């Protein structure tokens, strides 16, 4: 009788211990994943909040990877699409054929991403971040073969073969509107061929819509 009670006790201790371990582990993975893919880190509130994610796309299915990283308002759930998604674009494919074409056209990464969702959350997050980067690289293809990934999504930047480093910011880097506004006072606006640019010190920014949000891309001088 005594032995039984003791056994029962140790089983409970073990279970509680395991669940604590699991929770800790999951949390560690989550944070680890976050570290790999996004820059919001420990800050909460204000600019530290993610405003987009898997659900912001509102997609009915389909996986897309645009989400805007650590400070976005879009994301998988914001698309409102019936085809899943990772952030905000793919979802609204109107036909399965379109979906197929799109997937084949360049979103194989997404598909892999999705498969990995099912097995490993952390890898998933990393893949997502990678997808986001790959997305950006789509348009930056002409610029750089390889890209570097320093400190997270918005800290990430692309190598520029021609040495386009401008005052610490690399051509093709993007920052959020919030980050831009924080320094906007020291910037001057310029319109070239009808398109808006900002010069902040020696760095030129070009605002543009990315996944539903205005982001600021570091560009070479438009002048």
């Amino acid at each position, binding site marked *: 009788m005594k032995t039984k009670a003791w056994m029962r006790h140790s089983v409970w201790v073990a279970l509680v211990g395991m669940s604590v371990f699991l929770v800790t582990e999951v*949390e560690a993975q*989550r944070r680890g994943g976050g570290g790999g893919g*996004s820059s*919001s*880190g420990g800050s*909460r509130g204000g600019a530290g*909040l*993610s405003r987009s*994610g*898997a*659900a*912001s*796309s509102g*997609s*009915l299915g389909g996986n897309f990877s*645009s989400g805007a990283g650590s400070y976005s308002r*879009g*994301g998988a*759930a*914001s698309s*409102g*699409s*019936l085809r*899943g*998604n990772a952030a*905000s*674009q*793919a979802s*609204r*494919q*109107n*036909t*399965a054929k*379109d979906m197929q074409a799109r997937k084949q056209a360049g979103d194989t990464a997404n598909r892999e991403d*999705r498969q990995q969702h099912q097995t490993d959350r952390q890898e998933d997050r990393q893949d997502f971040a990678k997808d986001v980067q790959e997305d950006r690289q*789509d*348009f*930056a293809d*002409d610029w750089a073969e390889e890209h570097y990934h320093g400190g997270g999504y918005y800290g990430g930047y692309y190598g520029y073969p021609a040495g386009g480093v401008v005052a610490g910011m690399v051509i093709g880097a993007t920052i959020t*509107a919030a980050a831009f506004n924080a320094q906007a006072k020291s910037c001057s*606006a310029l319109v*070239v*061929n*009808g*398109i*808006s*640019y900002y010069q902040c010190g020696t760095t*030129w920014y*070009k*605002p*543009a*819509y*990315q*996944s*539903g949000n*205005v982001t600021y*891309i570091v*560009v*070479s001088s*438009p002048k």
Partner: protein
Amino acid sequence: MRSFFLGLAAIVGTALVVPAKAADNVQAPAIEEKAMTSLTRMAEFLAKAQQFSVTANIGYDVAQDWGQKLEFGATRKIVARRPDRIAIDITDRDGNRRGFRFDGKQIAFFGLDEKVYATAPKSGDLDAVITYFTRDLRMPLPLAELFSNNLLKILKERVSEAYVVGDATIGGTPCEQLALRNDLVDIQVWVAKGDKPAPQRIVLTYKLENGQPQFWSDFRDWNFAPETPDSLFTFTPAEDARRIQFVAGMDPDAGKNQ
């Protein structure tokens, strides 16, 4: 002894049968004809509506790095006139006002408070413009599939399970609640009963995403005979608005080369 073996057989038999039954029970039904009939009614009704306006009150979860889900949302007023006109006015919950216009020739997306706009030439019907905007320009257009001319086809392709949950009243409108599934998303839609089977509410659960975030929308004030003058869909930038570009499809060196 004999009864012992019979008893054992009964126990083993039950053990074998019970889990099998339980497994049957937890499996959602595949495609229920009754659900598909309702879904088809809704899809055909929407796709045939030559013009409509509706207010969608949307919300969605965004999982934060620290494991917490936060809800964000917006109100979207949508006016469409088939084949090729649609206007969406968006007010985010933080007050930020944005909009989308398509006048049959051009797409415009703009931020009234951010004082920016971007345009892209495009012709075609609603399906063409939705596809172009979301796939090529990689911009989100929540719930856009509902405006598709091919809604029924889309739903059929994307639904692998469908069943009727039951009756429910949403915003005073008697509805039928339908549950649909595909490999990525669990969908619930509440379809109005009667001769105007428009969706009154939709809930999407991204079951494979971290934290299984949901997107939901309540639809209010469906109107299938709204005023739809051309001017409603034509975009005129505000005087102090800055023109920007869509990142997707943008020549990264456009500033230099133009």
